[in-house]
């Protein structure tokens, strides 16, 4: 029931976040919060736990009341600082925001507030605008924001006005998000879903800055990212001729006009990861070994014939070459980056490094391994060769993997040219320090491999063969380790394309 302004009593409706108890100590000290007022519209209310600042509407309407409860729930369960979560790189910032909205709305409903009041009249126009632009990713993210609120149907109406076929798919996404939240609530309890306990007891948070409940948000956000960017997960729908020359799988699919980019079959196969499947990487510390040994072939520079230049070194071509390429031009080798998993399950010798550098002159070779968090700066990635020189000292393996994904990102950043190959020598047994194999971390590696066209091989010997094939411009195929295939199948319901 809505109270008419004339019936409103003089009330102090500013929320009282000072009362909120958290387990991470963020609101422990007694102290005043700054409360500012705003209109009851999407985007205006906000909460900053660490700064003790809340902006909320304070009029005596049910909508205002539920918005206040929403902001209070943020003060109760949301992380004070979202940056460590963004830095983990499991999900995008936008997905984290939207998944958190869904979790908070779910929790305030469980607290007894009617989320049907949560609509400000902008949902329809938002749906229309998003659909008109054909922005599927934003459509998915916004769906999570309004999931379970009174504004959801208006949003879908707006979507359907421009993209009729998107409606059912987005509604199904809403249902899947709610189903996942219900599952967590039922199986693990609200205490777990809304927990602000620091995950120091587990092996995923050495810095003590990640709160337990937000792992669920992160898992849903990662799920939303997959649904929002379906290109990477539509492999089995592709025709063989769509495949890229290397046998990669990152090619979009063509769909009839108006069809959502995410097929029903693809959506049905996707599932959110669980908190128990979450992991963390160690801090990456790079050490450049002394590169004392010169590798014959240097940077792989060679001369090729050219029809322009100063010194005609190939005069015979005046007769034999229709293009009369009598001059020389220097070109550098393909180079590339070879990243080697140097954990206990792999082995590496100086001879291996030499073979790689001979197969791809000028390439960068690095290996990585650790079984600790290495927050003290202890090296866990060693550059063994670069710029035509290599080390004679191969570091002793430190046992575990620990930094697979950070090392992979580092390797991709070392590319000098866009078409330089990045080869990752791994058996696919990626894991954080002191952790078992986690699907979340494996998915993070798979996505990066797909996005950056990294080629995987399971041994140095195979990597050398691959480099030789690349030098001969032969078509090469991706060889996914069995661990990655299993993870991808379990998480997305699809096979990784070779």
């Amino acid at each position: 029931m809505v109270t008419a302004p004339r019936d409103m009593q003089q009330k102090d409706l500013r929320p009282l976040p000072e009362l909120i108890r958290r387990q991470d100590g963020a609101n422990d000290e007694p102290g005043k919060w700054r409360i500012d007022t705003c209109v009851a519209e999407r985007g205006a209310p906000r909460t900053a736990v660490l700064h003790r600042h809340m902006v909320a509407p304070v009029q005596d309407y049910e909508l205002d009341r539920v918005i206040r409860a929403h902001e209070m729930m943020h003060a109760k369960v949301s992380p004070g600082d979202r940056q460590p979560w963004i830095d983990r790189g499991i999900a995008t910032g936008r997905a984290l925001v939207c998944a958190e909205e869904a979790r908070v709305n779910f929790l305030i409903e469980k607290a007894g507030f009617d989320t049907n009041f949560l609509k400000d009249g902008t949902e329809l126009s938002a749906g229309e605008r998003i659909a008109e632009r054909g922005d599927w990713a934003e459509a998915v993210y916004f769906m999570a924001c309004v999931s379970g609120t009174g504004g959801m149907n208006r949003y879908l109406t707006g979507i359907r006005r421009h993209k009729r076929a998107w409606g059912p798919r987005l509604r199904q996404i809403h249902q899947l998000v709610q189903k996942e939240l219900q599952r967590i609530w039922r199986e693990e309890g609200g205490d777990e879903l809304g927990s602000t306990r620091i995950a120091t007891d587990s092996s995923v948070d050495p810095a003590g800055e990640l709160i337990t409940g937000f792992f669920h948000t992160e898992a849903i956000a990662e799920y939303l990212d997959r649904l929002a960017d379906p290109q990477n997960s539509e492999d089995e729908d592709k025709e063989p001729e769509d495949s890229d020359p290397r046998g990669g799988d990152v090619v979009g699919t063509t769909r009839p006009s108006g069809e959502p980019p995410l097929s029903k079959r693809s959506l049905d196969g996707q599932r959110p990861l669980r908190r128990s499947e979450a992991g963390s990487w160690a801090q990456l510390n790079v050490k450049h070994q002394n590169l004392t040994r010169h590798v014959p072939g240097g940077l792989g520079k060679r001369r090729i014939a050219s029809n322009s230049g100063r010194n005609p070194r190939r005069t015979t071509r005046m007769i034999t070459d229709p293009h009369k390429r009598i001059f020389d031009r220097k070109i550098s080798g393909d180079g590339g980056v070879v990243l080697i998993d140097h954990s206990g399950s792999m082995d590496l010798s100086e001879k291996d490094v030499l073979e790689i550098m001979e197969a791809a002159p000028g390439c960068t070779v690095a290996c990585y391994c650790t079984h600790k968090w290495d927050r003290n700066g202890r090296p866990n990635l060693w550059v063994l060769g670069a710029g035509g020189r290599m080390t004679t000292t191969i570091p002793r393996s430190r046992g575990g993997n620990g930094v697979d994904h950070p090392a992979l990102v580092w390797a991709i950043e070392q590319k000098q040219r866009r078409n330089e190959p990045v080869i990752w020598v791994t058996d696919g047994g990626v894991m954080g320090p002191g952790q078992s194999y986690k699907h979340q971390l494996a998915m993070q590696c798979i996505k990066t491999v797909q996005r950056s066209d990294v080629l995987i091989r399971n041994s140095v010997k195979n990597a050398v063969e691959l480099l030789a094939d690349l030098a001969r411009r032969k078509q090469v195929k991706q060889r996914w380790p069995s661990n990655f295939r299993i993870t991808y199948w379990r998480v997305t319901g699809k096979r990784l394309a070779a």
Partner: protein
Amino acid sequence: MPDLTPDTSKQLSARPSRSNRNWMLVTGTEPRQPNLPQCWQDFNDVLSAGIDRVILYGPPGTGKTYAGLNLGDTDSGSWRLVCTEDMTNFDVTGGYMPDKDGFKWSDGAALKAWRAGGRLVVDEIDKAGGDVFATLLAMTDTVDSARWENPTNGKIEVPRDGFTAIMTTNIESMEELPAALKDRFPCAIRINEPHPNALAGLPRDLREYARKMADAGNRRISLRQFYDYSKLRESHGDERAANLIFGDRSESFLDAMKVDTAW
């Protein structure tokens, strides 16, 4: 709720009364309490170290006066002075009172504390008038400088060993206090939350709220309000109790509780 405001100028027994039994009396030999809030731990440490001039300041209703009267070594007794603009030196040092034989000298709170070597607790020091303030400075001066001439016999009196003084105030910044006072009381502790033993009388579910709301500025909810709320809700339910105690803030209070206790 324990009585946090004992009678003025009433000597308290060192033995805890029924109402103050929850409070731990500090003698300087107790082990550190692991869960004691920092401000109270500071106060304990200061008393244990033998500091005899302390200012306690901060929001009202956190038990500063009660702590002054009871915590530490109060075997020789505690005397309380509540400063107002209208009070005179009569309350501090004493004065002549009429009796059946004419006039008779009556000791003030500070003089009683001097003679007993006890504790003088001066409340609301910022509200004292100029005369009283000057006298209080003299009476709380260092032992070597403190002197007072008794008008009845001209005898010079000095504080006995063991005399201590604690001043309390609700001001938020020590800068607002006169320099002379700050000089005599170099140790000032801001008390920003109630002592855990004072919270122990509340139902378990309200203790943390009472602790957190004690220092919420102008949105503060005092410990006394929480005590009354807890009593009222037993007989009249949460909503009615909140309406009666928190008035126009009752809806915000109840909604905050609802969010905080959702699972």
